[in-house]
């Protein structure tokens, strides 16, 4: 695995360099002046010009780029133009919220995705399969924001059982923190789990037709053992790939879910950064998102090779 990681390092660095250039230029291609936002809606042009100078936005682009990259190597991610705070501090204050949400949603994604997939891929009775497939189709058709709103309506308004607005860190108060996380994590995970479940189901049905399954049946292996040891294990490859891809979607979906549930995570920071043309914040978030995607991809490939001996790293 070390050889594999070493061989992948140059391409990862290249991707990150290209991302840094794109992340730097892309926000600046969006029309508008961040100084105008800082100055306020009634500001005259002279105030906006003075703020541009104060924020260093009048420097040549190449200077701004190397200032930023130089800072990254020394651990300085830059200063937010809107909030005048270090970007690292802004991200640090929110990353816990998003990670907690993504982890619980990821857990639900695995549980519901693989669970529903196994049920649909194993269920013998017609009504059971119809029920599971119906549930799957429903989740496939429902975007996370819709599921979120339905959950708010049911558990926040009709039956006031769980909090629907705000957050408390699980680390500060595990009980309340977990309650605050439940609905957003479910809203994020349930629609995505349907896609994973469908993959597991299709794969399991295909594997069941394989000769080695017939051989196991002929040898008298119990059905549960066949399902778990022979069918499921050989069906998980596509699901693992899908879960890896879906992890990126979890972060993207968090933008909407954080907004609906009034959580202050990275998604909300990204939205605020984009709305105010806060270049330093956007730059770091874009590079960070690509970095996470690259790591998720690496982990997917490693997991795949662990599950399926035919798949070799490298």
């Amino acid at each position: 695995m070390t050889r594999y990681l070493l061989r992948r390092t140059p391409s990862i660095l290249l991707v990150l360099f290209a991302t840094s250039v794109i992340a730097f230029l892309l926000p600046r291609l969006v029309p508008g002046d961040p100084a105008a936002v800082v100055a306020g809606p009634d500001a005259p042009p002279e105030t906006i010009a003075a703020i541009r100078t104060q924020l260093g936005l009048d420097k040549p682009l190449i200077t701004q780029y190397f200032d930023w990259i130089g800072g990254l190597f020394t651990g300085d991610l830059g200063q937010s133009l809107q909030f005048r705070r270090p970007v690292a501090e802004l991200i640090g204050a929110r990353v816990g919220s998003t990670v907690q949400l993504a982890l619980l949603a990821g857990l639900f994604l695995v549980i519901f995705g693989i669970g529903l997939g196994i049920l649909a891929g194993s269920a013998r009775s017609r009504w059971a399969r119809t029920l599971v497939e119906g549930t799957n189709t429903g989740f496939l058709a429902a975007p996370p924001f819709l599921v979120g709103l339905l959950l708010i309506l049911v558990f926040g308004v009709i039956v006031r059982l769980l909090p629907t607005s705000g957050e408390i860190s699980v680390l500060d108060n595990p009980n309340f923190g977990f309650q605050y996380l439940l609905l957003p994590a479910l809203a994020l995970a349930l629609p995505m789990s349907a896609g994973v479940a469908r993959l597991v189901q299709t794969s399991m049905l295909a594997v069941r037709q394989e000769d080695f399954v017939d051989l196991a049946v002929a040898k008298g292996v119990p059905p549960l053992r066949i399902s778990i040891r022979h069918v499921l294990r050989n069906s998980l490859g596509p699901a693992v790939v899908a879960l890896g891809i879906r992890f990126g979607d979890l972060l993207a979906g968090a933008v909407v879910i954080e907004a609906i549930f009034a959580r202050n995570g990275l998604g909300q920071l990204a939205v605020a950064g984009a709305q105010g043309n806060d270049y330093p914040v956007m730059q770091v978030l874009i590079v960070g998102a690509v970095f996470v995607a690259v790591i998720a991809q690496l982990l997917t490939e490693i997991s795949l090779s662990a599950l399926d001996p035919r798949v070799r790293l490298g």
Partner: protein
Amino acid sequence: MRRRYRCGSAAAALLMTVSTAAVAGCELAVNAGNPGANGSANCAPGGTLVAATAQPPIPARVLAQGAANFFWVRAVYEPLLTVNPLNVTEIKPVLATEYRIAADDRSVTLKLRNNVTFHSGRPFTSADVVFTIKQALTPTSPSDVKAILSGWQVEPNGDHEVTIRSKTPLSAVLGSTLDLTPIVDSRTYAGVENGSQLVGTGPFKVDSYQAGAQMVLTRNPNYWQPGQPVFDRIENVAIPDSTAQLSALRSGRAQLSFGLTTQDAQTITRGNRQYEIFRTGGTVYPLVLETRNGVFADKTTRQAVGYALDRGRINQQVFGGLGRTTGLYWADGTPDYPADLENRYGYDVKKARQMIQQAGATGAAVPITIINNPVLQAEYQIIANNLTEVGLKPSLVALAAPDYQQRVANGTAGNFLSFRGQNGTAAFMVQTNADLRLQGAHRQFASPQYTDLVNQVIQAGGGKAGAAALKNLTEYMLDEAFMHVLVQAPGVAVRSTALQNATMGLGGLRPHETCLGR
């Protein structure tokens, strides 16, 4: 009384997940708010006010008015005088005990309270007034009242008195200008920009500030006014999404909310005894026309637009009927308000179409720039319908805030929709309002006559001369029709009916006596 659920209770059955086991057996988070708030007339001291705003707090804009700071800034920073935003002639001393305007209306002496300290413990003195006004005048300061402050000379007379001398009459502008210039602490002002040090004299101290997210305030035990504040704590949380704001109100998390559209606010308050609309101040919504080129270079076409606009429909459909459609820029109740000039442009499609035809403008393209905002989008839909009806071809240019504000400030936005606070008298507005002022204005029109008429309003300072000057300016504005005021509407917040004694200044909520009835 708080409900408690034991293991294996309803929560587990409902959610059907392993995770519910962790929830069950524990206190429910939904029961952990302000217990017993019910809107009764009895206010018990203590408790927490959770106030939601669509924008996060922006400490760098302490010296400016803005929705982002509406619910926290006057709890921390206090002005010398405050003005009732629903009646701008009603002025009350805050950090000043009294003010005496000289007979020539060119100077004022303010006596300052001598028992006021900043949150740091340092006594408040006249040097802080001088410092604050100096900071408001720096090139990067966002102060809305720079134009007025730049004409002032502020001299301390000892520690607890200041004299302000002005080149122009003071009485018409003093209250609003000072209300929008809260006193900052000279020792810690450098930390205001990034919110690291927010030290004022107000009834609440900043406990914590999470940039872009929330501001938490706690009671100032050394506040100069005994018995105030009533709340122990204020949490100003940013909730940009309107659905989430409604959810915060409905779930009981927030007792006060600002940033919903009027329709959303009416949705939650209509027929609901738990919430009510809270008017925060006056706002004017104009359509500003590009007069330097294009179809509106012709005055007849501009006037035709005045007749084409169905202001009543905009008021009903966009502002829920809460606004006024006088067509004037000035708030009702402004001194010397020219009531006889109201409704100069009545809704008359036939007349508008004829005027457009006479001007040869039929079929002319009319792009209208707006900032991405549901209120302005809704306004545009009605305006577009009105203009199409009279033979023009409107089109929408919807921009994000950085682009819109840059174009509007640089005068490259063309025709645009905006909204501005009605923060004072006409003399105050023509010096500070971006649509009206002479320097750095956003409007797309200028003429020597306009400059002259505005200067007359500034110099008149009330009385018969003031009334005549305002009438002349208003007549000229209506005749030139370089912008059309669509609606004057109140700022709309939603508050829990349990919330009592919530008062507003121009800078925002003054939560000194605000409390929850229990």
